[in-house]
């Protein structure tokens, strides 16, 4: 990558300053903040799991569908692979292949959300949803979470918050991937100028990485 680095450092007074390495650096700093954001939640999870409710967390974890969670893990891992392939394709000047892999990546992200929809829907229909959302009672009956042991209630609270926040990041990922797709189509991203795409790729890997930690913590804790 070193020759492309040279290529993009041009200090020109009339142009906007372009800096491949600087852009990467800024992106990595942003990714640190993302990891720390989830880090706060992991911290809360571990405090409750280790110090207070080990047994309850085990019991509550049994209610989660490992098949769906595992399937989603596979989907995200695949999408990370296709993301890398899309970048490599554009670097090798194969625009067509790059677009194909980008579409696969976005489709995987969509598939992830679809699985999530069915997963959450199943939980809701068993009365497992945050108790204050009383408007849901109309469709699913009253929430049973308040009647669970306290540790299990906390587990489901964390489950919905962490996977919900992660799902939000997946959707944000889809949005930026669509921008990348557009840029590739209109030749804004090509074999000389792919820093933006690489940064979006980095973001996508972090979304994947966070899920890789969420999956065992929530689904396999039982």
């Amino acid at each position: 990558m070193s020759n492309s680095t040279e290529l993009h450092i041009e200090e020109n007074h009339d142009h906007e300053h372009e800096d491949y390495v600087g852009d990467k650096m800024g992106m990595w700093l942003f990714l640190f903040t993302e990891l720390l954001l989830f880090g706060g939640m992991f911290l809360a999870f571990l405090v409750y799991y280790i110090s207070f409710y080990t047994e309850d967390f085990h019991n509550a974890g049994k209610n989660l569908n490992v098949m769906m969670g595992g399937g989603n893990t596979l989907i995200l891992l695949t999408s990370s692979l296709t993301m890398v392939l899309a970048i490599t394709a554009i670097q090798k000047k194969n625009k067509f292949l790059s677009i194909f892999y980008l579409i696969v990546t976005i489709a995987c992200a969509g598939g992830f959300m679809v699985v999530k929809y069915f997963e959450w829907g199943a939980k809701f229909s068993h009365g497992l949803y945050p108790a204050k959302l009383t408007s849901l009672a109309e469709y699913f009956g009253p929430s049973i979470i308040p009647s669970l042991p306290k540790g299990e209630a906390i587990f489901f609270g964390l489950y919905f918050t962490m996977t919900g926040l992660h799902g939000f990041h997946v959707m944000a990922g889809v949005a930026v991937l669509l921008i990348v797709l557009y840029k590739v189509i209109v030749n804004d991203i090509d074999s000389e100028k792919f820093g933006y795409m690489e940064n979006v790729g980095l973001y996508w890997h972090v979304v994947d990485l966070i899920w890789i930690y969420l999956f065992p913590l929530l689904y396999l804790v039982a």
Partner: protein
Amino acid sequence: MVSSAKTFYEDKALIFQGFQESLEKAGENNKLYKFLAWVLSWIFSTDHKRVGILYLITMAAFFAIGVSLGLLIRFELFLPGEQFISARVYNSVFTMHGVIMIFLVVIPGIPATFGNFCLPLQLGAPDVSFPKLNLSTWWLFMIGAGLAVLSLFVGTNANGELMMVAPDGGWTFYVPYSLESSANISLALSGAFILGFSSMFTGMNFITTIHRMRAKGMGFFQMPLFCWSLYASSWIQVLATPVVSITLLLVIIERFMGIGIFDPSKGGDPVLYQHMFWIYSHPAVYLMVIPAMGVVSDVIAVFSRRTIFGYKAIAISSMAIAFVGYFVWAHHMFTSGMTETAQIVFSFLTFFVAIPTAIKTFNWIATLYKGSIHLSVPMVWALTFVFLFSIGGLTGLLNGAINADIHVHDTYYVVGHFHYTMFGGGMVGLFCACHYWFPKVTGKIYNESVGYLAWAFFFVGFNTLYGSMLVMGLLGMPRRYHDYLPQFTIWHQLSTIGAVIMVTGLIIMFINLLKGWINGPKANENHWDGRSLEWTHSASPPILLNFDKDPEVQGGPYDYDGEWK
């Protein structure tokens, strides 16, 4: 290097150029269009200098609101019993005083204003690394600030009636009260959440700028110390803010959905909230002060005509404060029921953080020693910083000691202590920066005699105001109380009188600076004979992309021979 080119005030504004130009064309006959074009050229400009000035103006407005709320508290407390605001409103007033002063004034503080304005100039760069991101931080700041200020005014109470339900219970939003209060907590927290993004993006931008955009010949250890302080505080912004973001978000989620995470009645642990809150908010304390230390390092060297004593020690101690500052958070929680081991560890680490702070103070004093000192207005403010921050720091040691803290915890002593550090530190540093870089920003100079007068009012008022708080705290006056026992009356009255004197000083200072900006006499190009790039290589005020040609650094930022020219 004096350039005859247009200053950045007269030049183009870099974004939405076409729209602005067509508006200007239309504005040749229409004053409204002309005005619109002018406003656009500011609020959509990616020029770091304009963004810095935008921050300066908006923060001045929020500062005025915060000061008014503070004065309201002081007037209410002039006599025991209820004067003119009820206990409930009183709770909202001190909470919003805290929220506005902390989140909207001191935390963005020096980095957002003079950091934006001076960092690229001091590094010899045409702009920051990500100019658009830089502009977006101001917009995020305005959205967050708007939500926070909105929460002051509107909302419904528990019975569904529209009324003033400003957040109460303090700026720390401790659970479980913040989960149960019917006030506008969620709105204020969403504001703080968005402000967090603004802060993080500024930090990311500055770190990248410092790594990538230094002028030729400028290594890390040839940077002015102000840049070092921004570097340290930027790391705090990047690494600490996300933790508070998620914490505040969890409170919002808890309020809307009842997931139980901090709610003891549902199995949650409220002390966990305090931990997560202070993991950010204690480093944030240093985030407020470190940039002020950077300003003071620069100013003291310039006005004593000496190379700064212990450059590397000052630079590295900034990083050390930022680093050690992460591991002291629980000293806010000595009375919350932690284990004794945790208390001892955090108390020890708290004392440890005093070491890099003291290193700086002694280096400043060593710089002054045998210096050719000029007591110009910026220098007076810089020395005031050293004096007031020393009091703030030393009173902090008492809070850091476990046994003493049990006595002074939640008293006015703590209020006095943190106003000495935050206001006497962070804000005095900002005032110092305002006076030091004034000729750079405006090309003009304020009236120096009036500057001294404003300082004198401020200094006397400040110490009366917060000094009496220290005393009455030690005597046992609890903080955040709407009423008090008669024996504290004298101290409260002294404090209120001090507040009036101090605010008089602030008003004089503000008018003086404003008058100087509008029709002050023209300043010299390098008004204080500074040696860093913003003085030696760029015009006052600077041109659009700062430098005619990329500057090359010979010599350090503090190359003085001890003589005044």
